């Protein structure tokens, strides 16, 4: 009997659904993150137009001393950073494909199969997005909007800051995968590692689409 039992353990990766545990867990995690961002976005929307003093997102504001504050949001610049983040999702797909198809014709030794390049590019695009955000935040502060100024400032910086923190975590995750890839090379067996990172990354992107639409585009 003991030998029959020992045999069982070559199959420790049996799961009920056939999916890896980590994949199921990341979906549960993303569900939870949805509620997190929903709470942040709802608060932003509830507080829209409720600020007593400016500056405001879409309208100019003149303070009692006659100083005029421009509308804060700079849609052209943020459209660029949104584009950058969207492109990063595309590149992420290529990174996953490169790892999954390692060694297959069309991928072996080609540009398409260069997972290191695609992982690095995803991280770089994410970092670029964060650069845009840093620029955006500092210029808002120069224009007179801080986290203390009014309800808009508090809810805007908290919401986008939370998203930025998620992007930062994603970039670190990507860099970790990249370093593994450089050290020992990611094989199709490791595709799951890249897969769950990609799921997270796409989720963070989708959240940004929601934020860009609801916060920036809708007046």
């Amino acid at each position: 009997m003991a030998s029959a039992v020992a045999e069982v353990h070559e199959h420790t990766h049996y799961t009920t659904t056939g999916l890896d545990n980590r994949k199921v867990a990341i979906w549960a995690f993303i569900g939870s993150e949805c509620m997190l961002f929903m709470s942040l976005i709802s608060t932003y929307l509830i507080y829209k137009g409720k600020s007593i003093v400016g500056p405001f997102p879409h309208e100019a504001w003149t303070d009692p001393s006659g100083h005029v504050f421009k509308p804060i949001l700079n849609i052209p610049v943020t459209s660029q950073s949104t584009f950058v983040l969207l492109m990063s999702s595309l590149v992420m797909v290529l990174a996953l494909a490169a790892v999954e198809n390692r060694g297959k014709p069309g991928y072996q030794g080609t540009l398409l199969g260069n997972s290191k390049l695609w992982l690095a590019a995803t991280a770089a695009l994410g970092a670029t997005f964060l650069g845009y955000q840093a620029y955006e935040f500092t210029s808002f502060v120069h224009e007179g909007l801080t986290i203390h100024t009014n309800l808009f400032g508090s809810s805007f910086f908290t919401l986008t800051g939370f998203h930025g923190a998620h992007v930062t975590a994603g970039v670190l995750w990507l860099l970790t995968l990249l370093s593994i890839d450089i050290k020992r090379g990611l094989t199709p067996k490791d595709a799951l590692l890249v897969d769950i990172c990609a799921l997270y990354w796409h989720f963070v992107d989708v959240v940004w689409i929601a934020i860009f639409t609801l916060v920036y585009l809708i007046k």
Partner: protein
Amino acid sequence: MATTAATPSYEQTGIWSWITTVDHKRIGALYLYTALFFFMFGGLEAGVIRWQLAQPNQHIVSAELYNQLFTMHGTTMIFLAVMPLSAAFFNFLIPLQIGARDVAFPRLNAFSYWVYVLGGTFMTLPIFFNTAPNGGWFGYAPLTTLPFSSGLNIDFWVMGLQILGISSLAAAFNFITTIINMRAPGMTLMRMPVFTWMSFVVQFLLVLAFPVITIALVFLLFDRFFGTNFYEIAAGADPLLWQHLFWVFGHPEVYILILPAFGLVSEILPTFSRKPLFGYNVVVYSGIMIGFLGFGVWAHHMFAVGMGATADTIFALTTMLIGIPTGVKIFNWIATMWGGQIRFTAAMKFAIGLIALFTIGGISGVMHSSPPADLQQTDTYFVVAHFHYVLFGGSIMGIFGGIYFYYPKITGRYMSEVLGTWHFWCTFIAMNLTFFPMHFSGMLGMPRRIYTYDAGQGWDTFNLISSIGTGLLILSTLIFVVNFLKSRKSGEVAPGDAWGAGTLEWTIPSPPPDYNFAEIPFVTSRYPLWDLKHPERTSGIAHSAPDVMTITDAHATPVHEEMGHKTAAELGIPMPFNTVKPLIAAAALVAMFGGLLFMHTNQFAVAMTITIGSASLFVGTLYAWLTSPLE
């Protein structure tokens, strides 16, 4: 049989093996001991509260300390006692009930436990220094913002809850994955034991409700530490923002507290009625229904704030609606006992006690689902009576029942039935003595959260009875403690199938070996062990023939009683390594939040050093953890 001493068949002993354990059964036991400790502590706080209120115009504690006592009593009971007691059962039982060798992420499980202990300690210690949280368990902002609550009290509460939320969320991801993905072959969703089902629903509630309070707390933390305006009325903030966010979490939270107890009695009642649960499908679907509806009733806690007739009506209707799936379960349990050959064990008494007492609490709940009635009842002792009938009469009775029922499985020995019966009747009587009069004092207008009151308002006798009841409750809990500790050493030795139950956890020895199942069973019905021993009981429920099972998947064997005492090594079962990393990560996490406290004592540099230092330690440990092999 009763002469051989039951020694746990764990291969390791010693305190270090507990600190580094990743075994779900040991973590479950740790949860149980710790949560029982916090339960006693919260009970003592309640004792002081009732001592103070026993008679009019008493000054045993100051108004300020009284505020800390009721805040910490509520917070402790909800977050440090009932939730972790449920978690003890999630940990211990879920893998056993679904035929798995462990949870999906054993180390994450250890992490959840350590975050809970350290976070609980973090929140509890300040009461000894007169700086415990004092804003009520629901911490209404703006009352809890800096201008109105300037001490460290609320900081401990905000950080503490944030920390505990992380513990619950990590555990919830773990159990969702475990239940979805680690079921033995043939253990289809609709064959899962009801406790596992109710736990499954609870994990979804945790995953969806906790982020909402996390954000509410983040806002409060930012307001207090970084000067944001979320709850700053002068800046135009909505005074109801906190209330909405809190109760969107808060109402699902009450189902997080009760559903595990519902699950436990759904195991106990069939076992001691010796027949399958009546209307299994209905019990499961009504549990899911409660989960859904639970997100649509939060504003019944806010009828008094003036939301307007439309909102009041909608929330009144949804609240009345949620009474239906809740009531349905009561009838299922009664019908389960109907015509059964009932054994009145201590566990069974507590399960029946739950049915009786929860029903009273459910009825008062439906009473204040009507806004005009609620306007009279809200913020009075009537509401206190309601939620103690559901929480004590429901959750705690169910959990006590669960402890008597599963103690033999956990320790290998039975608890004393004699002491158990004493414990039950004392608790049952004392509980009613304590909380029933609160219906009357509440109806007579006695508000919650006052530290004393004048004589001659018709409240005196009711308060005295409540306080006497509390004394008796503390006594009856002592009976339980004696029983719990004594039985550990000298209780009667229990066989694997301690009660003649029907589910998988009873097919393995008590206490289970560290690998749980020497052979993964394949399951062909809801009560596999009864199929084996009492086929007449299960002839009415659905079965699938063994040959249609895809047994090759996991080399599973038919369900049978395991008697062996082999070690994992002898059987060739790889076990996860013990590790201290989850504890280090948990400590770093708690220190990260704790460091921020120094900002309020104007030691900015200290705050940043601790917080950033521990954050780096946390990330570092996480990397070390994720790159080291599990087994």
